[in-house]
C-alpha cells in the first residue's frame, strides 16, 4: 500500500531523511518510531505530498506521489502532529468542510459524519464549537474527520501526544476498530513504545534520518535480546537527548496560550 524507495530530503546542508526505504502492506498498522528530530515528520510530510523529496520515489496505492498528487490525496487521511481544526466552527461543520474538500457526496457526507461522530463519542457535542473541546475530544474529532472520505491509508503523526491514559486507550481502540471494519492501512508515529508494541503489526525505527530496524515488535525485541520495545528503542538509538530548536510556530503557540490565560 505504501512503498518508499531511497527517500532523501535535505534542508540546506542538513539531511533530515537519508535514503529511507520501507513498505507497508494493505490493512497493516505500521508504527514509525524515532527520537525527536530523527526525520519522522519529514517522512510523513513527503508521504502526504506536502513536501517534495529531494530524491527517491514514493508509491501510495500504486500511484506515484510526485506525478499524481491529487489522486494520491484522495486516498489518504491524515492527523497532523499539531491540531488542524477550525476552533470557530462546530464539530459537524469541521466534518462538513472536510467532506466538501474531499468531494464526498452530500448524502454520504451526512451519513458518514453521523456514523463517525457516534463511533468517536462526539455525536452529543456535534453542534458545539471545537474551541470548547478538551484535548482528547479534539484528537478524536480529527481522527474521525480523517476517516470521513473513506481513505485507504490513515496517517497519524503522534496522535496521543498530551493525552491522558484513558483518552489514549480509547483512541487506539477506535483506530483498531476502524482499521478492522474498513480495512484501512494505518501509518503512525508515537513516542509511547508500549502503544506501538500493542497496536502495531510492524514497526520501523528511524534515527538521524536512517532506518535502523524494521520488523514485528516481537522480532525486534528478540533480535536485540530485550524484554520491552522501549529497551529495544533505547538500545537502537542510544540514550543521548536530542535537541530540537523551537520553530516560530511553537513560539506563537506559546504566545496564544499566554493570551488565552490573560483573557480568563
Amino acid at each position: 500500500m505504501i512503498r518508499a524507495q531511497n527517500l532523501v530530503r535535505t534542508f540546506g546542508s542538513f539531511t533530515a531523511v537519508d535514503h529511507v526505504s520501507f513498505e507497508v502492506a494493505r490493512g497493516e498498522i505500521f508504527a514509525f518510531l524515532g527520537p525527536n528530530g530523527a526525520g519522522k515528520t519529514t517522512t510523513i510530510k513527503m508521504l502526504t505530498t506536502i513536501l517534495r523529496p529531494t530524491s527517491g520515489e514514493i508509491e501510495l496505492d500504486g500511484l506515484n506521489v510526485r506525478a499524481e498528487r491529487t489522486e494520491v490525496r484522495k486516498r489518504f487521511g491524515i492527523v497532523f502532529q499539531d491540531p488542524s481544526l477550525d476552533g470557530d466552527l462546530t464539530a459537524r461543520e469541521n466534518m462538513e468542510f472536510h467532506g466538501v474538500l474531499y468531494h464526498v457526496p452530500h448524502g454520504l457526507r451526512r451519513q458518514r459524519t453521523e456514523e463517525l461522530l457516534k463511533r468517536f463519542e462526539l455525536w452529543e457535542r456535534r453542534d458545539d464549537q471545537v474551541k470548547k473541546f478538551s484535548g482528547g475530544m479534539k484528537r478524536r474529532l480529527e481522527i474521525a474527520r480523517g476517516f470521513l472520505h473513506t481513505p485507504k491509508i490513515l496517517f497519524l503523526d503522534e496522535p496521543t501526544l498530551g493525552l491522558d491514559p484513558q483518552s489514549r486507550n480509547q483512541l487506539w481502540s477506535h483506530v483498531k476498530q476502524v482499521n478492522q471494519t474498513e480495512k484501512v492501512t494505518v501509518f503512525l508515529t508515537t513516542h509511547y513504545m508500549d502503544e506501538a508494541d500493542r497496536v502495531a503489526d510492524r514497526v520501523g525505527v528511524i534515527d538521524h534520518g536512517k532506518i535502523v530496524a524494521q520488523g514485528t515488535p516481537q522480532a525486534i525485541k528478540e533480535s536485540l535480546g530485550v524484554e520491552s520495545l522501549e529497551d529495544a528503542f533505547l538500545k537502537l538509538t542510544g540514550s543521548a537527548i536530542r535537541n530540537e530548536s523551537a520553530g516560530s510556530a511553537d513560539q506563537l503557540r506559546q504566545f496564544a496560550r499566554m493570551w488565552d490565560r490573560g483573557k480568563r
Partner: protein
Amino acid sequence: MKVVYILWLREMKRYVRSRVQLMVSIGQPSVYLLALGFGLGPVFQRAGNGNYLQFMAPGVIGMTVLFASIFSGIGLLWDRQFGFLKEMLVAPVPRLGIMVGRALGGAMVAVIQGLLVALVCIAAGFRPVHWAGAALALVFMILIAVVFAALGVAIGSNLQDMQGFQLIMTFLVMPIFFLSGALFPLQGLPTALSLLTSIDPLAYGIDGMRSVLLGITHFGAATDLLVLTGAGAVLLVIGAYFFSRIEI
C-alpha cells in the same frame, strides 16, 4: 466551485460568530469619524474646504474596507499557526480554488463592514450629494475589498510569525491608509507625497467614492475604476502565485 463556496462560507461564519471582531471593526472607524470629523471640522471649514465630515466619510468607509480585507488575507498566518492551513492544503483540490474562496469570503466580509460603517456615517450626519451614486460607491467598495484581500493573501502566504505581522502593519497597512487621502485632500501636496499617493490603490478607491457620492474628484472616476481593476487583477495573480508556493 463547491470548494470556493465552502471557503467563502467559512469566512462568513467566522465573521458572524466573532462578536469582538465585529464590534472593533465598526468601533474603530467610528472613533476616527467622530473624533477627527468633529475635531478637525472647524479648521477644515476655515481653510475653505467645506464640511469635513462630508469629506472624510468616504475615507473612513474606505479605511474600514482596507483593514477588513487585508486582515482577512493575513488571517492565513493564524490558519498556519493553528494548523488549519494544513487541512486545506493536503485536500485533493486545486489551491487556486482555496485562495479564490478565501479572498472572496474576506472581501465580502469587508464590504459588509464598509456598509455598516456607512450607516454610522449617515447617522453622524453624512449626506451624499448624489444618492444615485450609492450603487457606484458599492462597486468601488467591492473593488477596494478585492484589491486588498488579494494583497493580504500575498502577504499572508509569506508571513511566518507575529513579528512579521507588526512590520506589515506599521510599514504597509498604515501608510496605505494615511497616504490614501482618506483624511486630507490630495490637491497641492508636496511632490514626494503626491507621488506616493498616486501609487496607493486605496487613494483611487476613496477618490472614486467621493466622486460618485459627492461629485468631488482628484483623479477622475474613470481613472479610479481603471486603476483599481488593474491593481486587483495584478494582485490576484500575485496572491495566487505566492499561495501556490506555500510549504508547511
